């Protein structure tokens, strides 16, 4: 201890002794081949600790001690160089080493590594690659950019749910989401409403490092079964303060409209359906004597009702309701300002950002203000401390879930013969409209959600010796959310109660403490050792409260203070915690052989006392074959590494905080409190455990102009947690148990190529392809099937099949003789018109077989074109609303255009059954393969054309960079899916098993924006 102190003292004295006579030099560092500025290059006075880094324009300024003669200049991807100080201006040309990718710093849990030394699989996406992309959630920006990372937005609502699966679904009931860690703080993804990740301004992000295999992730133990996304925000660098300003403006449109029947078709087909039903009853409604009491009379009365002031017989009205669900003037806007810089002691990055995104749906908006300060202060040579802190305010105009009558997309069910407004200009509502008109809720209701979010940490790091340091981090993630809803006198909720108001409050507090020691030592030439030992404690707390009321005196008074009746309210709290101890050791021998061992013990409050702790070890090794003599001189093969890993991770998230207990909860009867059974006990409930093996090859050819990775993996999850259906006679419907096993096997291929590099023209391409096969290996006991047919959807669990496959009746088309819908009997050959007699088959799979991303960047003299195609293949989507919108006028909902091909007379060959009002006989509207469609797609995810002003111009206006750009998101989608958009999983039921469901889900957003980015 005393020794350490004295070393510190010596170092401090040394530092002081340099403060003598000084001169200042300036200069610029450029790439010898392309002439581009090299940013972040390190300039150091040889033999001292004095140095600086270059700014974005490659420039530096450095104050030298008197006797300084040599500078050491180095940068990632370049061969280091020594230059002598020959005058006040020292410009440096650096030669590319061809190892830019390999020397990249990759963030791992509780530390960093250079990519070359990795033994696990980590995908890195640079913040700059997704900067300024006009999407609200960074996950959407990552779509298509990393192998093995499947991103799917539930629908096109802005600021709402986005699924991200790393190497497939690992769990049935527990969480399938990765763990998100921002600057060392695992953040909370739970929230009152909306998507907790939309609060994060990803323009502040330096890099996303996605830990995919178990060895990379196992340091996060039980939190890491679904991978980990490490988000590192931008930090300041020594040097002159630089500013970046970005402004952007654009427009949002839906990717696709599907189209419904127009007024003429609606009237014709509806009447046809009514006549068909009458004929089945033996009634000829066209005979005036039989008209009374007929389906036709019933239908025509409805047509009259739905026409409002207009006359359906003369087709006075032809309303395109689908178009009314969308906001024609949806726009996006963004302004970002950031500054970063520092001295040798203090470094900072700070930013202020505003972004606005109108959703494409009426009433759906998103706005976010955010600010960040990242500050690091060297207190002494040994001790530094700092803070990374972001605050944000997100404001959303929300629209109801896809299954609510008042959600904008359900407007498509209304009749095209209904005018939007009555003769007084009021928007028509039920009973003139077929159902409650969502447009009324848009005009006369509001749902505003405001979230304040504060994510940050403070840290201190003490270097005992150059090779041993201790770091302590305390992080918080605080969320305060208020949802205010008011529905006026004419709305679905407010009708009959003189308005409905509701105020929800959500508070989330997540705090985290990390303490760890790191030891790094290079002994001799051949041995590199790094070891980490530490602990982590994390606690989550959420509190929710709401109050709602009715009977408002006037619609202008919308707060509950004015409610005549406070109908009710509630408050809830939940808590959970984790306590963990972890260790990791890395060893590198001779720059060739790599070995890494890690282990973590996790304790979680969600399990009973006996099964609370789990141990999660991992081991990985690598061999850099290209360092071997027999390959060292290969001109073609420049890099080759073989690596393999095994690890065990766990999962304790997503199935409730007290799943092991037998619980009773409060209820009420006759104004008196009561207790009701709510959960069946399972004292044996234990961790889900996931075993993953990964074998990978990293390679580079032609001085690494072509480089890539190929990985094979198998992830097997045991002790799957599932809410198994049990006999209702027990008084419960489900029991949470560890039931079985599931596996994900796959291949990931990443290829990067610098196709052309010349001084004026550059072209690079990257491609990632991932194939994943998910398979349920075992369910409870002898059970091999947990069918999921709930009358509308078919997502089931079947041993030997992928999670959530569609299992149910197979549609066999239409009987040409009578227009009945047909299904296959269990033999799979003969057909029946009885749905109950139909056999059950696996009729589709919502899990994609292959996902891919294909990106290109082209540069020509300051003009830059980049585009990214993203594709999803081999999956199906079931339209749960098929029984309403593709249902042969089973009821009065307007129908999809394919219904024009209905069966009309004996001998007609079609797959659309006879139209029958009122659900007569076999009309095939039940859940079956009829409503399952292929949902493969290829999408032009992002395209950007930018022009960088030349430095000759910039010098005059005192700017270091200026970029004018136009960017587009989802501009082109190629698919056979007949619905709105193949990227869909309706929000109200989205889950691990419940995938690939469409139900009036909004199409994705198509955006085109222009922007200006300047730096000075």
């Amino acid at each position: 201890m005393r020794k350490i102190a004295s070393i510190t003292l010596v170092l401090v004295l040394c530092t002081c002794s340099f403060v003598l006579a000084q001169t200042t030099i300036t200069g610029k560092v450029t790439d010898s081949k392309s002439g581009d500025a090299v940013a972040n290059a390190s300039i150091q006075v040889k033999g001292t600790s004095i140095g600086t880094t270059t700014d974005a324009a490659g420039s530096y300024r450095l104050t030298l001690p008197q006797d300084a003669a040599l500078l050491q200049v180095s940068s990632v991807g370049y061969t280091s160089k020594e230059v002598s100080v020959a005058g006040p201006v020292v410009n440096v040309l650096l030669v590319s080493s061809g190892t830019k990718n390999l020397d990249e710093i990759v963030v791992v849990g509780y530390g960093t590594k250079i990519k070359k030394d990795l033994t696990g699989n980590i995908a890195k996406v640079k913040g700059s690659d997704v900067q300024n992309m006009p999407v609200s959630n960074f996950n959407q920006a990552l779509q298509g950019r990393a192998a093995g990372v499947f991103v799917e937005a539930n629908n096109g609502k802005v600021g709402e749910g986005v699924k991200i699966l790393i190497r497939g679904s690992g769990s049935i009931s527990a969480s399938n989401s990765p763990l998100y860690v921002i600057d060392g703080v695992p953040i909370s993804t739970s929230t009152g409403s909306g998507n907790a990740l939309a609060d994060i301004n990803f323009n502040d992000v330096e890099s996303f490092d996605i830990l995919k295999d178990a060895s990379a992730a196992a340091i996060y133990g039980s939190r890491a079964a679904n991978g980990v996304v490490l988000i590192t925000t931008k930090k300041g660098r020594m040097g002159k303060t630089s500013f970046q300003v970005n402004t952007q403006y654009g427009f949002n449109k839906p990717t696709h409209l599907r189209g419904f029947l127009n007024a003429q078709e609606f009237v014709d087909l509806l009447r046809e359906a009514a006549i068909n039903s009458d004929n089945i009853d033996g009634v000829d409604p066209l005979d005036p004597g039989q008209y009374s009491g007929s389906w036709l009379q019933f239908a025509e009365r409805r047509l009259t009702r739905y026409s409002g002031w207009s006359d359906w017989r003369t087709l006075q009205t032809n309303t395109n309701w689908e178009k009314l669900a969308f906001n024609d003037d949806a726009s996006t806007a963004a302004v970002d300002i950031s500054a970063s810089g520092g001295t040798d002691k203090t470094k900072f990055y700070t930013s202020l950002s505003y972004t606005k995104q109108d959703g494409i749906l009426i009433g759906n908006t998103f706005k976010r203000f955010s600010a960040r300060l990242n500050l690091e202060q060297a207190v002494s040579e040994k001790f530094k401390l700092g803070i990374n802190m972001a605050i944000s305010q997100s404001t959303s105009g929300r629209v109801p879930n896809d299954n609510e009558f008042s959600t904008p997309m359900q407007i498509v069910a209304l009749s095209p013969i209904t005018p939007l407004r009555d003769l007084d200009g009021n928007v028509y509502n039920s009973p003139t409209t077929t159902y409650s008109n969502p447009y009324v809720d848009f005009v006369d209701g509001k749902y505003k959600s405001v979230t304040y979010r504060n994510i940050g940490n403070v840290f201190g790091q003490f270097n005992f010796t150059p090779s041993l340091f201790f770091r302590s981090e305390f992080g918080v993630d605080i969320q305060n959310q208020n949802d205010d809803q008011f529905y006026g006198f004419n709305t679905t909720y407010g009708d009959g109660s003189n308005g409905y108001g509701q105020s929800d409050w959500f508070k989330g507090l997540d705090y985290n403490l990390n303490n760890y020691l790191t030891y790094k030592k290079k002994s001799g030439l051949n041995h590199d050792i790094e070891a980490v030992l530490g602990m982590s404690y994390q606690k989550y707390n959420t509190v929710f409260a709401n109050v709602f009321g009715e009977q408002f005196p006037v619609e202008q008074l919308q707060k509950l203070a004015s409610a005549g009746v406070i109908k009710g309210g509630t408050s809830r709290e939940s808590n959970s915690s984790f306590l963990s101890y972890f260790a990791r050791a890395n060893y590198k021998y001779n720059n060739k052989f790599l070995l890494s061992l890690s282990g973590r013990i996790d304790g979680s409050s969600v399990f009973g006392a006996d099964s609370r702790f789990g141990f999660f070890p991992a081991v990985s090794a690598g061999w850099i074959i290209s360092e071997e003599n027999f390959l060292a001189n290969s001109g073609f093969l420049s890099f080759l590494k073989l690596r393999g890993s095994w690890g065990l991770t766990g999962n304790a998230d997503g199935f409730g905080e007290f799943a092991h207990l037998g619980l009773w909860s409060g209820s009420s009867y006759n104004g008196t409190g009561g207790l009701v059974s709510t959960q069946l006990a399972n004292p044996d409930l234990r961790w889900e455990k996931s075993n993953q093996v990964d074998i990978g090859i990293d390679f580079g050819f032609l001085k690494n102009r072509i480089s890539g990775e190929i990985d094979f993996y198998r992830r097997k999850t045991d002790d799957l947690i599932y809410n198994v259906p049990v006999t209702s006679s027990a008084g419960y419907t489900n029991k949470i148990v560890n039931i079985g096993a599931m596996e994900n096997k796959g291949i990931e291929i990443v290829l990067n190529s610098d196709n052309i590099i010349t001084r004026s023209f550059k072209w690079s391409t990257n491609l990632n392809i991932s194939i994943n096969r998910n398979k349920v290996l075992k369910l409870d006991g002898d059970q091999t099937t947990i069918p999921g047919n709930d009358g509308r959807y078919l997502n089931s669990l079947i041993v030997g099949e992928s999670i959530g496959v569609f299992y149910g009746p197979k549609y066999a088309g239409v009987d040409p003789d009578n227009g009945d819908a047909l299904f296959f009997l269990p033999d799979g050959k003969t057909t029946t018109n009885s749905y109950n007699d139909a056999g059950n088959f696996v009729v589709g799979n919502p899990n994609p077989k292959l996902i891919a991303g294909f990106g290109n960047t082209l540069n020509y003299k300051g003009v830059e074109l980049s585009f990214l195609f993203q594709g999803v293949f081999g999956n199906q989507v079931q339209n749960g609303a098929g029984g309403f919108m593709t249902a042969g006028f089973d009821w009065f909902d307007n129908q999809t255009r394919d219904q024009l091909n209905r069966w009309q007379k004996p001998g007609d060959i079609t797959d659309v059954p006879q139209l029958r009002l009122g659900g007569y006989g076999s009309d095939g509207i039940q859940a079956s393969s009829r409503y399952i469609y292929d949902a493969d797609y290829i999408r032009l995810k992002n395209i950007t054309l930018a022009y960088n002003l030349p430095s000759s111009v910039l010098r005059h206006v005192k700017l270091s960079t200026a970029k004018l750009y136009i960017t587009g998101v989802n501009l082109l989608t190629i698919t056979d899916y007949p619905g709105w958009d193949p990227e869909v999983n309706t929000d109200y039921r989205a889950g691990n098993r419940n995938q690939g469901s469409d139900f009036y889900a909004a199409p994705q957003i198509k955006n085109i924006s222009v922007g200006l980015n300047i730096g000075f």
Partner: protein
Amino acid sequence: MKKIFFILMLPAVLFTACSKELDINPTQSVNEDFVFSTDANIKAALNGAYDVVSSADLEGGNLQLYAELLGANGEISWVGTFNEPDEIFNKSIITTNSFVRDTWSAAYRAINICNNIIANINVVNEGDRDRVKGEALFLRGLMYFELVKLYGKPYSAGNAATNLGVQIVTVPTVNGEITEVQNVARSTVAQTYEQVISDLSSSKNLMGEDIGVYAGKYTAAAILSRVYLQMGDYTKARDEANDVIENAGAGLEELYSKAFNNTSPSAEDIFVLPVTAQDGANDLHTYWSIADFGARDGDVEINQNHFDLYDAADARLALFYDYGGGYVYSGKWLQQYKYIPLVRLAEMYLTRAEANFRLGTATGAAALADVNMVHERAGLPALTALTLDDIILERHLELAHEGQRIHDIKRLKQTADGFAYDANELVFPIPQRDVDAVGPSILVQNPGY
């Protein structure tokens, strides 16, 4: 130096302090052991059992809706958009129908709460023990009765000793243990009725005189009269109804309309569910009323076929209302926060009348007098002579849209929309999820599914 020492010690201190932090208890729920540890908690569980029984899946609206949709006979139409009631209305129910599934599981949830109460009855203070046990038995018997009526062949179909009823479980599920006791095969229709009668008769003997929103002696008698009527045991049906009329202290409201849309029990309510803005479900309102009163879109319309049954002067007609355009709805369920009558005294008069008439007796009163009590209250001149059909029609109109229709059709061996009273289509399927969970060889599906 001390500082460094402190920094090094910090994690050690934190390590030990944190272990306790893993002990976290729920804030919205309590452990099952705790529920059955005190008198007050068990009484709260009894109130919880009422809450489940009064939920929308059960007596809060759906049981009544099913009975009326199955027995529609052209008198009413389901015009709503939900597929599940539509399947019931069309008698083409699929085994995955979620309404059918949820009603089944809600009934067993109530039964399990009752089983827990009965098993732990000795924890209840001695003075209240009989009442608490009686109410638990009553609710259990009521649930088994509702289940067997919908999920089993009617008693009137004969073969009650072989036709399948429902699964009978009379012990509580605890510690998460599910064994053969719960994964049990279906009892027969006769066995299920035996269980119902046993529970209701025992409860009748244990409970007090008070009736209304909680069950008492005469609530049990009223349900028993329904049970015996289903079984065609007119003597017992008459006697139970007579017991209610003579002793329950209820009286007919002066006006028929006063029996509905109340914010407290009416004079003729024998059993009534409280619904206020604060609690209670009213799905009768949801489906039978219209958007102007905060309901759905008038999912159940009343047709001319129904009105054809009435005398034009019948005051009961006044309760129906026209929405414009010829759409007529029942006004019994007009408003949401109104009490839902489950058994009214009028039904007891009609049950006693029918039983007396069939038996040729005049227990309590002559059949004609009982029918006229109801008939004259509807503003009609007293009948002077009586046929069985008169009594059946009076019952049909008096109890219209209150959830008795299909059960009367079945016991009277009438037809429903062309289906024979004992047709497979008029019996619900056992929910597919339960058949899957227990196994189709043990939990046998109903014929026709």
